[in-house]
C-alpha cells in the first residue's frame, strides 16, 4: 500500500505539471481600446436689453389689439417709463412699467448669447408676473406669434397685451449672439390705477438636435 502511494504521488504531480504548462504555454496576445467621452455643456445668457421708454422719451400709444400704427401721444406727454433688470445669472429679465395708463405702449428687446459648447435651439418663452407666478408659456416656433394678454397684478383681469415680433426656432452656435427678440406691450383698459406693471421673461433652449421643431438640414441629422 505504501509503495502504491509512492507511485501515485509523483504521477499526479507529473499530470498537474503537464496541465499547468499547457495552460501557460498557450500563445496569446491581449489588446485594448481605452475610450474617454468628455461631454460638453449647454448654457446661454441674456446679455443685453432694450426698453423704448427707459429715459425721457415721449409716451407712445396704440389701439387695442395693436391695430394700426403706434403713435406718439400728442403734445409729447412724458409721464410713463420703463426699465429692465437682467438677473445676475443671465437666465431671466424683469421688465417694469411705471405710471402707465390704458393704451400706453412700449417696445422691449432682449439679446442673448450661447455661452456653452453645444449649439442651441430656442424653443419657448415663459412669462411670469411680478410675484414670480408663471402666467404664460408661449411656444410658437418658426412663425410670428399672435398677441396675448397677461395679468400682471393678479386681480383676475388682463393688464397688458403682448405682441411678440420675432419668430422662435433660431439656432445659435457656441459663442454667437442671438438676433434681436422684441415685443410690444399695450396697457389694457382693465389695468388697475396706481399699479406698477411688472413681468419677467425666461427663454428656454435645448441642444439643437433635440428640438421639437428642428431646422432641416440638407445633410440629415440623426434620428
Amino acid at each position: 500500500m505504501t509503495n502504491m502511494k509512492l507511485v501515485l504521488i509523483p504521477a499526479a504531480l507529473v499530470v498537474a505539471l503537464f496541465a499547468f504548462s499547457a495552460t501557460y504555454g498557450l500563445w496569446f496576445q491581449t489588446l485594448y481600446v481605452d475610450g474617454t467621452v468628455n461631454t460638453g455643456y449647454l448654457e446661454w445668457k441674456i446679455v443685453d436689453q432694450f426698453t423704448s421708454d427707459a429715459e425721457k422719451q415721449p409716451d407712445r400709444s396704440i389701439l387695442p389689439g395693436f391695430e394700426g400704427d403706434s403713435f406718439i401721444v400728442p403734445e409729447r406727454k412724458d409721464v410713463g417709463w420703463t426699465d429692465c433688470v437682467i438677473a445676475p445669472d443671465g437666465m431671466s429679465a424683469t421688465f417694469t412699467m411705471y405710471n402707465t395708463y390704458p393704451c400706453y405702449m412700449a417696445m422691449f428687446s432682449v439679446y442673448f448669447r450661447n455661452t456653452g459648447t453645444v449649439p442651441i435651439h430656442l424653443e419657448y418663452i415663459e412669462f411670469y408676473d411680478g410675484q414670480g407666478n408663471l402666467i404664460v408659456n408661449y411656444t410658437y416656433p418658426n412663425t410670428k406669434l399672435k398677441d396675448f394678454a397677461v395679468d400682471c397684478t393678479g386681480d383676475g383681469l388682463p393688464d397688458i397685451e403682448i405682441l411678440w415680433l420675432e419668430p422662435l426656432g433660431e439656432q445659435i452656435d457656441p459663442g454667437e449672439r442671438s438676433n434681436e427678440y422684441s415685443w410690444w406691450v399695450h396697457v389694457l383698459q382693465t389695468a388697475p390705477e396706481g399699479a406698477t406693471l411688472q413681468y419677467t421673461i425666461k427663454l428656454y433652449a435645448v441642444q439643437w438636435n433635440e428640438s421639437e421643431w428642428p431646422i432641416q438640414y440638407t445633410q440629415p441629422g440623426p434620428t
Partner: protein
Amino acid sequence: MKSKMGVILGVSLAAVLMLGVTYGLWFQALYIYGTVCTGTLDARWSIHCAFDTEPEVKDYSNITITQDIIDPYLLHVTVENAYPCITYYAVIDLTNTGTIPWIVYEASLVPDQDFPGTVEFVPIDEIGDLLTYIGHPSVDLGDGLMPIENGTQVHPGDSAWGVLAIHLTNEAQENSTYTFTFKVVVEQWNEWPTEPPPGYDSNEEWLAGLPE
C-alpha cells in the same frame, strides 16, 4: 590444475575473439540534425477613420482615435464636447502581424457602470451606408470583412474589422467624463479556447451560440 588453466585460457581466447569481431564489424553512423524555428503570434490595431453624425454646419463635437505612443497594443478613443443623441463612430481593424493564425477569443466591450448610453460594435456591413449617410468620403473596404468578435479566425496578414459606435442618452451629464474599455484576446488557432468565456459553462455551449 592444468585443465583449469586450459579452460581459463580458452575462455579468454574466445572473449578476445568475440571482441575482435565486434570491433572489426563494418558499420556506418547516420544523423538527423533537427532545427525547430517557432513562429510568432502577434496582432496590431490599425486606425481607419472616425466620424460622428453632426451635420457639417453643426460640427462642434468630435471623436479622435490614436495609437498609444508606448504600448503598441493600446488605442485611445476620445470624444470631446459630446452631447446626447449624436453617435460617434471609430473604424478600426485588428491585423494578424504574426506568422500563425489566431482566433479572437475574448472580445469584451465594457463601458463604465454608469455610462449613460451605449458603446457597441455595429455590423461592419453597415459601414458603407454609415459613411454615405454622414457624407464622409467613401472607404473601399471590400467584401467579406470579418468582424472582431469571438470565434473569428484571422490568418497572417489578414484583418478583423470593427466599427465602434458610441451614443449618449439624455442621462448624460454636462461637463462630465465617461469611460469604457474594449479588451480583445487572440489565441493560437489550434489551442483555442483554453477555457469557456465568462458566462458559459463549457466551450461547446459558447461555440453553439457563435454566429455562423
